[in-house]
């Protein structure tokens, strides 16, 4: 759906190397600076145009957890006293590597979050502008 038109880009698609596709809220995946970079309209990556990111290094199970985490982070982004997300022990090391790869290792403060959101909105508006022209 996200490849249909960038104006619908409230969601993006993440694809694992074994072909699982996850459609996620765009704002939620911006927690990962790597994915954010891939989707940056200025970068001219094909991901930015199609809204579809393929991860050849991450399998479906791990990517599912990553996506779950993105939603979890998004849900709790401004709440205090957040319950920990459950991490399956057997996936722990792979997930750790994925987290490292996707740069999910830093805390995002409220201020930083606001800038992310601003970028996201600016991004949306720039896209719509681009379509109008």
């Amino acid at each position, binding site marked *: 759906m996200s490849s249909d038109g960038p104006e619908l880009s409230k969601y993006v698609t993440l694809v694992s190397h074994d072909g699982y596709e996850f459609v996620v809220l765009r704002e939620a995946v911006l927690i990962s600076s790597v994915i954010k970079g891939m989707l940056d309209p200025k970068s001219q990556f094909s991901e930015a145009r199609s809204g579809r990111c393929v991860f050849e290094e991450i399998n479906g199970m791990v990517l599912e957890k990553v996506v779950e*985490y993105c939603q*979890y982070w998004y849900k*709790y982004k401004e709440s205090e006293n*957040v319950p*920990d997300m459950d991490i399956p022990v057997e996936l722990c090391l792979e997930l*750790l590597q994925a987290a490292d790869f996707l740069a999910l290792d830093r*805390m995002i*403060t409220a*201020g930083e979050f606001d800038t992310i959101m601003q970028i996201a909105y600016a991004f949306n508006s720039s896209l719509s502008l681009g379509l109008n022209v």
Partner: protein
Amino acid sequence: MRPGHRSHNTRRSISGPHSALTNYLASNNISAAQIRADAQARRAAAAADSSSNTPAAGELQPVTEEQAEVDEDEDEDEVVAGTSAAAAARRARQKRKKRDEAIEKIKKSKAYKKRKRNADDSDSDDLALALFNEKLAPLPGQMSNCEICSKRFTVTTYSRAGPDGGLVCNSCGKDLTQDEDANKKSKKKRGPAPKGGAGRRKIQSRILDGTYTVGAKNLMTLCIETLANNIDLADDLGDLPPPVIDRIARLLSKTRLLDPRTLDLFLQPHHDIINIYDAAKLKSDDFIKIFQLVPQLKKLKLRNAIQFTDTVMQYLITRNIALESIYIHGANLIGEDVWMEFLTKKGAHLKGLQIYYTDKHFGDKAVGLLPSVCPNLTRLKICHNQELSDQGIECIAKLSNLEHLSLQCMKKTSSNSYIKVIESIGPQLRTFSIKKVSDVDDRLLDALHEKCTNLSKLRITESEFMTDAGFARLFRGWKNKPLTFLDLQKCRYVDASRPRDNEHKVGLCSEGFEALMEHSGDKLQNLNVHACRHIPRETFEKVFSGDKSYPKLRHLEISFCEEVNDFVVGSIFRSCPDLKEVNVFGCMKVKDVRVPRGKILVGVPNALGMRIEGVDD
């Protein structure tokens, strides 16, 4: 109203032997036979009631009635005079009246209310009746029917009451007890489960640790925590990047899980950094194993390395390992000779030497050796050392490449030795930290002013001789670039008899504080003026006035600065946009400050103690 009246009358119509007690009781309107008859009747009524109340006991009702009849028969045998029908009817009426009264009373009682709360679905009359029956339950030694299994059993003092108020037999009683215990346990388990992530205590502890954040933890933290909790399942950490491995090591040490087995996870042959934050469980052999398995080791950090003994050090000396930095904490089993041997053999490559808590075994002789054997040393830190004295400190002056120097000696040290160090290597120093230097005075500050131009971190604590003028001289027109870290903790005047007077302006006071903020305010990230209690309120107000801004300041420690009040703290929040945490322990004039969103104020002297606020902006 007492039944005694009536029975007294009836008793008079029979003749028989009278005991002295009977006579006495009779003279007091008490009839022993009447009491007995009443008691029997009560028991019979109780038996009848309990059986009629228990649906399961339905088929056994005849037996109970029979029993009641038998009781009555006995009754009649003994109290021959009470046999007239009218008297029996009257007695029955009275009994019922008494029972109703008792039930009314029960309804008012605490036990009833309590039980009613617990079992709100049952009818109130039934409940009262059950309690009443319980009170009238068969006495020990009698037979009764179990409320649950309806079997007949002998009542003992240990017989339990069943759910409907009647008694239950021994085996059913046991089952009941077990069920209740199980219920209690499961309730306890469910009870304290926190509804959010962490409990209040945990959150407060995280605020104090400075690890408190709004929002979810990052994925890596979650993974690392899971991994640390299940480290016994891990055989190999695989190809994780060093920062991640370091974080795992920290977390494991925090929970004291680092032992000979988990140590293996961190010993990869290709690593060149080993950080072990808690080596207390490691034996000498384990330390030797580190050097065997990691031949390319460059940087070694060991805390609580108690068993890092002479043997281990000698093994390290024999190996072809060229350590660039060694950080060792608590290794008080290494003798000074072995230290000197190590420095002589391996010192040439050494860039960092950090030694903490080694008791008496790293003294003046070892430090004296440093300039000749460790020419490349850039970082030297000796903390909590009981042997190092002025003589050793003076030798540090000859370390021509030193950039970072931290000392904390347990022996008394004088200004002169530190001044010598500053005069010699001051210009290149980037860190200068001396702790608990009570005898050091203004001359050191002047030397710092004169020589140092590259300092970014400065710490001088607990000096009792430095004066406000000295601090002002240091910071006014100092050629040094602005500091990023400054700690002047407890540089203050102490006099128990006249604590408020400080006519010679000993310690950091108004001028010094103003001068330091003037000099370093732009770049300062971390400021600690803990217990510099002679800084006046006006100075704080001036330094943190509306037109001043300290854009980099993140951590401010102003605990025990007596003059700090709500207004000052408010001004601080206004002047320091990037501030993360302010400590105000012991500032008794801080009462009710509005803390901006995302900032932490620690140590407010109220019941909350510390807090974070998210509403103000």
